[in-house]
């Protein structure tokens, strides 16, 4: 076992423990934060970094064994691209159902916010 292996082992372990704690914080935030809009914040960020750490460890672990694996990169990219979209959709449904924080400010351009602009209609 070379010095490089030891360093890699330490780095991977640190990444894993950190990522695990972040994943836990994301789920804990869901319970602790009092208001629905605040609860949206915790999982979109913290959980993504938790999975990101697991994926980075997986890629580096394979790299340490001499294999190149790029699928981890694909999953990370995909999660980074989709997390904002799901968060936006959830926020929009909270606003529409009136469950978001009260005192929604008016839009600075004068036009209403798009979720509230058109009432939901039958196609």
């Amino acid at each position, binding site marked *: 076992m070379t010095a490089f292996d030891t360093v890699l082992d330490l780095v991977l372990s640190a990444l894993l*423990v950190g990522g695990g704690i972040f*994943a*836990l914080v994301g*789920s804990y935030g869901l319970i602790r934060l009092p208001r629905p809009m605040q609860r949206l914040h915790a999982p979109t960020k913290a959980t993504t970094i938790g999975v990101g750490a697991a994926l980075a460890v997986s890629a580096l672990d394979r790299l340490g064994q001499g294999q190149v694996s790029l699928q981890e990169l694909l999953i990370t990219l995909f999660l980074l691209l989709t997390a904002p979209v799901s968060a936006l959709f959830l926020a929009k449904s909270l606003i529409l*159902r009136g469950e978001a924080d009260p005192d929604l400010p008016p839009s600075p351009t004068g036009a209403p916010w798009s979720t509230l602009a058109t009432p939901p209609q*039958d*196609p």
Partner: protein
Amino acid sequence: MILPYALGVFLGCLTLAFALNLWRLFTAPTLADRILVLDTMTVNAIALVVLYGIWAGTGLYLEVAVLFALTSFVGTVAYCRYLLRGNIIE
């Protein structure tokens, strides 16, 4: 080699996270919260699958993770669309 112990710690964190998620799933005050919890659970499940892949030392489980990431996103968006529009496919 301390990597197996780190894997154990990560597994512990994820298990606890799943327990918290389940608790929130049953006590969620709003519908959007439930969707959010389900989304978080799928992301945690992806982490779990990747973790098992590292432990088993094969890349096969990554394919599962890819598919899970794809389908969970579609599921979340479909639920939200149902809340927003009352239907999913127009």
